[in-house]
């Protein structure tokens, strides 16, 4: 199973389209958005890309209009939840969360979660930069940001069950 993972699109439709076009080359089975859509209209673009693919999403700290986001998500059959969200694929559980406070705090929490060895992978957003590491064999990954605010737009591809992950940048 191939997972496409993105985060922090912050209303940047152009970058979202670029990223989704690149992700489409990987023939992913599932698309995951780790929050900070900002405006509900962003969900429509995800849905247009997805077509027959399942999309999971979590709210970020900047997703204020949750009621409308939820309404749009339901309309386009996107599963959007509060963080954290645990997904199970082929008997492997993946822990998704957006993040808290500053990057250091988010990374520290992600690291501690990985050390607990309860989940096969810990995936998070919020820090706006790609991060890929293995802690005791547990994949710890942030796909970076779609919006390109602080860093180049990027996304991640994860293979389940090998949990090999790779970060890709968009020019």
């Amino acid at each position, binding site marked *: 199973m191939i997972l496409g993972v993105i985060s922090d699109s912050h209303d940047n439709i152009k970058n979202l389209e670029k990223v989704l076009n690149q992700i489409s080359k990987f023939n992913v089975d599932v698309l995951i958005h780790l929050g900070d859509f900002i405006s509900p209209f962003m969900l429509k673009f995800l849905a247009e890309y997805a077509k027959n693919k399942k999309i999971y999403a979590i709210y970020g700290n900047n997703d204020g209009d949750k009621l409308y986001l939820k309404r749009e998500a339901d309309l386009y059959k996107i599963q959007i939840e509060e963080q*954290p969200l645990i997904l199970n694929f082929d008997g492997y559980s993946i*822990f998704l969360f957006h993040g808290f406070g500053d990057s250091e705090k988010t990374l520290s929490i992600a690291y501690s979660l990985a050390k607990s060895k309860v989940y096969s992978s810990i995936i998070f957003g919020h820090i706006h930069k790609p991060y890929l590491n293995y802690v005791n064999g547990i994949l710890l990954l942030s796909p970076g940001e779609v919006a390109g605010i602080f860093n180049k737009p990027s996304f991640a591809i994860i293979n389940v069950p090998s949990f090999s992950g790779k970060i890709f940048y968009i020019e």
Partner: protein
Amino acid sequence: MKIILGNLVQFFKYLLKYEEEKTGVLIGENKDNVIYVKIAMPVENILKSKVEFLANPYDMVIAHLLAENYGLNVVSLYHTHPSGLPIPSLKDIEGMKLWPIPWIIISKIGIKGWILKDGVTEEVILA
């Protein structure tokens, strides 16, 4: 460092009625090395053991969310030693490296607070 527990002592003593180790976090604020606790949030011990605990990661994230929602922080982690001393075990010390905040250990003998500094446990004043 000092942690102001107040009536939480009664809550901690109540947790000792359980044979398995109970755990949770304290949410509050740290002002000039004095920790003021606002919320005590129990967290599941997923090991359900009498002699060790592993805080449910899901609950830990919820605790941080709760803290953030109130403009506070997770300021301490507590757990019980139902049949032991209120001092950190070797496993506790490993855990203190992961969650580098003061740890409160509750036992029938007493309640003590600890923090890891340069790999060494130091007692924290509980008031």
